[in-house]
């Protein structure tokens, strides 16, 4: 479970995130929806301990990202923006490297890498150097890498960027599987259909603040039948409405 509690972050003069609070529960897929520059990535980066909040805190399964970042990191798997992997390692080695960083022994990480390669159907390219990988192959490698230590919580920053339809479907299937296995999945996106198809809960962010949160139906109640209409209605509201900002 992930809990953001009044997260604030500024870069110089720019206040990127201004008091974001929400909860992403186990066994659910939570979508962080917002326009470009709304503060989604900054919020995620604070949750996965790469940025330190100026104010507020975040709890990963009850462990503070400020108080005990190492413990918090053990129970998160991260797919960062762009999903950078190591070009001179094979897909299998990329996965095993993160297993090692997470403290898995040699036999354990080898077995785990093989398991993930099968799960994500990566066999055709598992032992090739990552240099010439397609976007989809890179994403699968990065996903497997983030799952190698069986994290309870999975955070993904714009995971479908640059993927073709088949790759997106594959990702969707995997995230659903993870949810059904009881994991807490949190991903950011600015694509409405994606959020609509996948999410159990949605947190809408604008100007570094949460403007709406709840189930898809809760969000749609802000206007129109479609999520997109509701989103536009929320954005038009400009300042967040106090009754929906938690």
């Amino acid at each position, binding site marked *: 479970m992930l809990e953001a509690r009044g997260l604030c972050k500024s870069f110089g003069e720019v206040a990127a995130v201004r008091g974001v609070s929400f909860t992403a529960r186990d066994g659910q897929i939570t979508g962080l929806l917002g326009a470009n520059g709304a503060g989604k990535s900054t919020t995620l980066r604070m949750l996965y301990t*790469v940025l330190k909040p100026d104010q507020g805190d975040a709890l990963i399964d009850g462990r503070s990202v400020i108080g005990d970042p190492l413990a918090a990191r053990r129970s998160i798997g991260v797919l*960062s923006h762009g999903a950078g992997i*190591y070009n001179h390692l094979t897909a299998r*080695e990329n996965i095993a490297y993160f297993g*090692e*960083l*997470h*403290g898995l022994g040699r036999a354990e990480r080898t077995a785990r890498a093989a398991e993930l390669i099968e799960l994500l159907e990566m066999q055709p390219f598992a032992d090739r150097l990552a240099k010439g990988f397609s976007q989809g192959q890179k994403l699968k490698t990065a996903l497997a890498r983030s799952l190698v230590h069986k994290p309870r919580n999975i955070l993904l920053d714009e995971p479908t960027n640059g993927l073709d339809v088949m790759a997106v479907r594959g990702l969707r299937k995997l995230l659903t599987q993870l949810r059904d296995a009881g994991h807490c999945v949190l991903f950011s996106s600015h694509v409405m259909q994606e959020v609509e198809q996948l999410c159990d809960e949605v947190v809408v962010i604008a100007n570094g603040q949460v403007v709406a949160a709840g189930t898809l139906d809760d969000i749609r109640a802000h206007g129109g039948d479609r999520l997109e209409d509701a989103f536009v209605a929320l954005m038009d509201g400009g300042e967040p409405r106090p009754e929906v900002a938690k």
Partner: protein
Amino acid sequence: MNLRGIWAVFRKEFRENLRDRRTLLSALAFGPLFGPILVAGLVQFSISHAEEQSEENIALAVTHAERAPNLLAYLTARGIDIEKVDLDENGTRHAVVTQKHKVVLDIPVDFGDRLQDGQPAPVVLYSDSSRGFERRGVGRVRTLISQYGIEIAQLRFLARGIDPISVLPISVQEIDVSTPSSRSVIVLNVMTYIVLLSMLAGGLYLAIDATAGERERGSLEVLLTAPVPREHLIYGKIAACASYMLISLVLTVTMFSIAMSFVGLEQLGITANLGPAAAVTLMACCAPLILFGASYLSIISGFAKSYREAQTYLGLIITIPTMPLMFAGLLGLQAKAGLMFVPFLSQHLLMTTVVRAEPIETSFVVISVVSTLVYGAVLMYLAGRLYRREALLG
């Protein structure tokens, strides 16, 4: 302290860069192979050139040769090949500039008359002093002409009943006390420079790839989410960089040892102490610098935003530590306790001592090793601090 993260990062960087042609070439080929071969080739070239010059007759073009037959006979007898030419002054200058004739002697019209009258008889010698290899030839012609003049003077004194010895009040005897090994240092001075530079270059691309490159690829962000203290990540990278520098150092010194054994240094009366034992000592002198160098490169490229930017910085910055060596060369610095506190310079001076086959002061070695390791540890700590900063992600 749990060192698992350092070990994991070290192994991965080591293995990944082993597959990177750029890193591999710079660590294992450019410095270690080309450096020693280049130096050995240059030394061999200057040796063979010097030999040729001392044995070969010197070509001398003479205008108006008919005006000084005795002088020319004197020169011919002492290994100067006379070629009679007919050139005016401008023609002569042009011939020397274009190297048609390397040295030209012009006998003025009044040469014979003035000589007869006991007046200083001028001759004009044209040469191009910007051409290093020709200087020896000019020197020999000039010396021979002066000797000819002295012989004439001595004959004149004799004719006037004066002992010619009395007009040579001072005679200079030159004694060169340089030993063959110490003379070799002049020839091989550039070697220490190449060893140190090649060692740094060995870790260069790994340092860039592991810091700026990792950030540019976007893999740094995920790496920072691993449950490993951030400073351990950079320590592992520094360790991998250091291992490449060590490989480069060992290869470079070994190659020097091998390449120099093929060069006919003894023909110059030079022996360089570069056997297996000396090679190992040279490596040991430089080894403490590796921590310093690896941390230094990692910090600089850690500040760069991209691979290219890091390359630009490091191309310049890699030469900074070797600058004291240039001063050492210019000022002719000798090993002193105070200088042993200067990284790179102390290693240069110790290596020079070893190549000269001179005894090494234990205290110098201790100061050099300990101070260099302390600087290295401080830099490594600073690199760790750098990786704790949030701005690292750019």
